[in-house]
């Protein structure tokens, strides 16, 4: 069952429709409701390896629907601490719960100042409205 449209206000957003939930020097990353809706039901998640480096604005993995492939753009730089195996096994989890069970990776940030360049909920909504 697909989730209904929402954008939690405790997250930081990247214009490529990715989100970050920061906790200390760690961050959990995922894609927004808009991204999963645009793709349709996800059928494959190609995650990075644990221990791999991810860098802000670059691809750290891929998600695929029946029809399309989409790069996952990292909103922050860091080292991958954990991959959400639940999404590897059941990619549709992202459609059902993009901000909860559908998270994608957890990282340790290597440049926490990057957070200041991410969008607030207000800024991200504005970007969506401008479409």
């Amino acid at each position, binding site marked *: 069952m*697909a989730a209904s449209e929402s954008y939690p206000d405790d997250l930081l957003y990247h214009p490529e429709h990715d989100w970050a939930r920061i906790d200390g020097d760690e961050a959990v990353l995922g894609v927004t409701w808009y991204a999963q809706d645009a793709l*349709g*039901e996800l*059928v*494959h998640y*190609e995650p990075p390896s644990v221990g791999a480096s991810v860098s802000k604005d670059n691809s750290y993995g*891929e998600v*695929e*629907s*029946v*029809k399309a*492939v989409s790069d996952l753009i990292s909103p922050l730089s860091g080292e991958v601490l954990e991959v959400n195996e639940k999404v590897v096994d059941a990619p549709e989890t992202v459609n059902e719960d993009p901000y909860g069970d559908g998270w994608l990776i957890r990282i340790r940030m290597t440049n926490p100042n990057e957070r200041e360049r991410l969008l607030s909920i207000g800024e991200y909504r504005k970007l969506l409205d401008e479409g």
Partner: protein
Amino acid sequence: MQTLRRTPLFEQHVALGARLVPFAGWEMPVQYEGVIPEHKAVRTDAGVFDVSHMGEIEVEGPTARDLLQSALSNDVDRLEPGQAQYTLVTNETGGILDDVIVYRLDEHRYLVVANASNKDTVYGWLKERELRGSDVRDVSDDYALLAVQGPHALAKLGLEPATAFTWSMGEIDGVEVMINRTGYTGEEGVELACMSEDATRLWEAVLARDITPCGLGARDTLRLEVCFPLHGNDIGPQWDAISSGLGWACALATEFTGVERLREIKAAGPEQKLVPFVMTEKAIPRQGMAIEGGGEVTSGTMSPMLEVGIGMAYVPAAAATAGTEIVIDVRGKSRRGVVKKKPLYKKEHS
């Protein structure tokens, strides 16, 4: 920029919340609720597709048979009124300009249904071969075409089963339709042709019979599970019909463009073959991906029924036997698959 054409059902698609995409110059519904639920509706119940973008060309006259026999690959003489035939338009090298279905309407009248993207090519091909006593007309705008497919399609439409590749005239809730026993999903079903002005009535009548609207996304995954080639993906001018596995639609004893080349390829055996495959590792193959040792993927998706990556690919003839392992370059990563026999998806008989 070219404006996109719309079928007579465009407003109906918008009202149903369809996601519309450009396809072969048309603005078409790729999905309504979602590709996977629509796919499963067709496999388990019944779905309807608006395929009015496809082209219809009428060939009429006492020499219509002669024209079609020389212009198309299959043997048109095997076609009686009331029957339909899958056939190809081939070029000098035996490559495929389009795959079409020819319906024999009566003694001297045929209807050629072509892919939307190739309609002008097919019309031009037939028109320039017009003979004295044959008339070729593009009647695409006159007709709407709905494919109603699935194990419950006939019952829901109130139709009796009939032989595949036949057609008859009939009526669905007061709309006069040509009922074609053809389809592109591997399921039982029909393709209904009606006059364009009746399209909305027919569409509404079909939906009222509890048949799920389905987009081109599901049409593509359905046809791929049963290994029906798609022109522009799996077949095209660059691959000869024998390599494409469509030798059965080429009557090599008849004369048509490219037949000499096809006879040679048939005699020598093709160097490459179009084969279906399934992934044995977690990955989704996509059109254009290279195969280790030669070859390329021409169609790929995640199979909604099998829940694995599936596809079709050209591989060297030596690697075309079912059971042969293939390695596909999935955006830089090597992922394994195995060549299979057609079809990839087969209904379990109960």
